[in-house]
């Protein structure tokens, strides 16, 4: 068969290539550039090889923030995914309440991230905040600016409040796409609600849930604004997640080399974990 050769097509791809180059490849390459060099100011750079990478990978500070990041991400996943599915299951599938529920669910997603942080900061203040004062009034010694445990509690609660909706909406989309015949067949087969969830709803939600988990994993692993506004990484370093630590090194200390190396490691961790996760989730699909 003779294919028609038309090299003009490249011309049409060019704008996209240029766009990707300017907003992804070139910035990434400058980071790569910094990560292998040392500078003593004056805009003079020296070759440093993998020194910064070694330094970051062996630094206790990096291990500590990575550890906190992991705890944060897996905590919010462990809460948001089941909670989101649960809420989606209780939402009506037909009728006038559907749009009401959907809008209510979408509301937290529409609030700018730093506003969420500020809202929760004020909400949780022990002396004037509604949450802080109430907790103290009913006998809890709650102070998120001084006690690391309270800071973590508030940070996780804030993320659950902000992002569970996303899981709900995705899970709900999966649920409403199940044809009625499945429920009817299950009814006829005498399946109990738990069996319906296990054998119909969960398998049908699997794809959207995979997406939900991936999105929540990536977003929470990169999260910066909300915890920064809420706790600023404190008290001490107790809520300093990876991105907060990175900003401290890059802009606070202006250590460009280590910061660049850390950025790349950070990026590779997210990429690798997403890939592993997706492969594992989708493996069953192939069988």
């Amino acid at each position, binding site marked *: 068969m003779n294919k028609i050769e038309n090299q003009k097509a490249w011309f049409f791809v060019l704008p996209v290539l240029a766009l990707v180059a300017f907003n992804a490849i070139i910035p990434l390459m400058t980071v790569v550039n910094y990560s292998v060099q040392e500078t003593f100011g004056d805009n003079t750079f020296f070759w440093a090889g993998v020194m910064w990478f070694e330094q970051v990978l062996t630094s206790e500070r990096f291990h500590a923030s990575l550890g906190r990041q992991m705890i944060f991400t897996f905590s919010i996943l462990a809460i948001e995914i089941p909670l989101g599915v649960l809420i989606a299951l209780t939402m009506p599938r037909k009728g006038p309440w559907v749009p009401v529920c959907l809008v209510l669910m979408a509301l937290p997603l529409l609030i700018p991230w730093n506003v969420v942080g500020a809202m929760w900061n004020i909400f949780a203040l022990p002396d004037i905040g509604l949450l802080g004062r109430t907790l103290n009034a009913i006998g809890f010694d709650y102070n998120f600016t001084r006690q690391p445990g309270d800071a973590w509690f508030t940070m996780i609660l804030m993320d659950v409040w902000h992002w569970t909706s996303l899981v709900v909406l995705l899970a709900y989309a999966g649920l409403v796409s199940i*044809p009625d*015949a*499945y429920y*009817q*067949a299950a*009814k*006829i*087969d*005498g*399946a*109990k609600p738990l*069996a319906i969830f296990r*054998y*119909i709803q969960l*398998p*049908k939600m699997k794809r959207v849930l995979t997406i939900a988990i991936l999105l929540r994993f990536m977003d929470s692993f990169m999260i910066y604004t909300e915890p920064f506004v809420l706790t600023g990484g404190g008290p001490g370093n107790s809520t300093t997640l990876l991105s907060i630590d990175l900003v401290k090194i890059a802009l606070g200390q202006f250590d460009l080399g280590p910061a660049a190396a850390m950025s790349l490691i950070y990026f590779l961790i997210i990429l690798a974990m997403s890939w592993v996760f997706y492969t594992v989730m989708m493996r069953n699909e192939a*069988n």
Partner: protein
Amino acid sequence: MAKITLKGLRHSYMPNPSKPTDYALQQLDVDWEDGGAYALLGPSGCGKTTLLNIISGLLTPSHGEILFDGQDVTRMQPDERHIAQVFQFPVVYDTMTVYDNLAFPLRNRGVAEAEVDKRVREIAEMIDLTSTLDKRASGLTADGKQKISLGRGLVRTDVNVIMFDEPLTVIDPHLKWQLRSKLKELHQRVRTTMIYVTHDQTEALTFADKVVVMKDGQVVQIGTPVDLFERPQHTFVGHFIGSPGMNVLPCQVKGGKAFYEGIELGSWNASACKYEEGLELGVRPEFVKLSDAGVPVEIAKVSDAGRFQIVHTRKGDHSIKLLVPEGVEIPEKHAHLAFRSDHTQVYRDGWLVSGDNSHE
């Protein structure tokens, strides 16, 4: 197994139905004999699926009752009625193996595992799924999945009726025929009452001992395939069943004789007709012949259907079709048609005219 009785059944999807057109199902009184193979035939939107869902219990009728062997089940849930249903689109539990799919209804009912195993293997044998028992159900083709749906109904020993809601819609044409004969064979083996909903007359007529023809939420005729062909109770049945459908022509009846455009035509039931308005004459193309005398017509078109030819003729605004065997010479332009009087019948307002006036 059970005899199913529908008594004074009506259903509307509206909360406050007032006029007849608000009802998806008009008045229905039907008996389904135990062990019968029934087809529910009608065009889309005639209420077939509504009726099916009412029998299975997925829908509660607005009026009337459903009896299984004399017991009122109108308010019972589907699983309490002991029925099985095969849907238009195959429903299988994707994550389970074929075996687990078939075992599912039994396990839900707490049947002992040894008994489950025995039943599942027996049924798998019946529907030719033995070799795929260990496979994931999601990997099967559409016809395999439909077999699983059917199998989930067959494994239960307490099933009163198995219902099929256009089960061959998504099946490849060459497998449709296979699956249909398999169904027929299974029915002869298990003798469970089966109700098969379809809008395809071939499916209905080959599967069923008795066909229930529906139109606009009403049953227009219940009968064997032969009844439907030879004695359509309504011009709709004549149209809908048969290919091409029955010819319907306006007529007058005077002194027990039927006239079409002034030409007297023999009809077996004209003598019972005491009416003058709204009369029509129905005759199937199979019972119309080319002849030397009779109704003069113009030949409009001849289409070859293999073993016979379909001749489209015109008389004025009316079209009359007839079937002519292969090889018979057809006149170029003008011809005369003769109708077989024992298969030419008079209808009034669509209904077959009979001595007892049952449709008054």
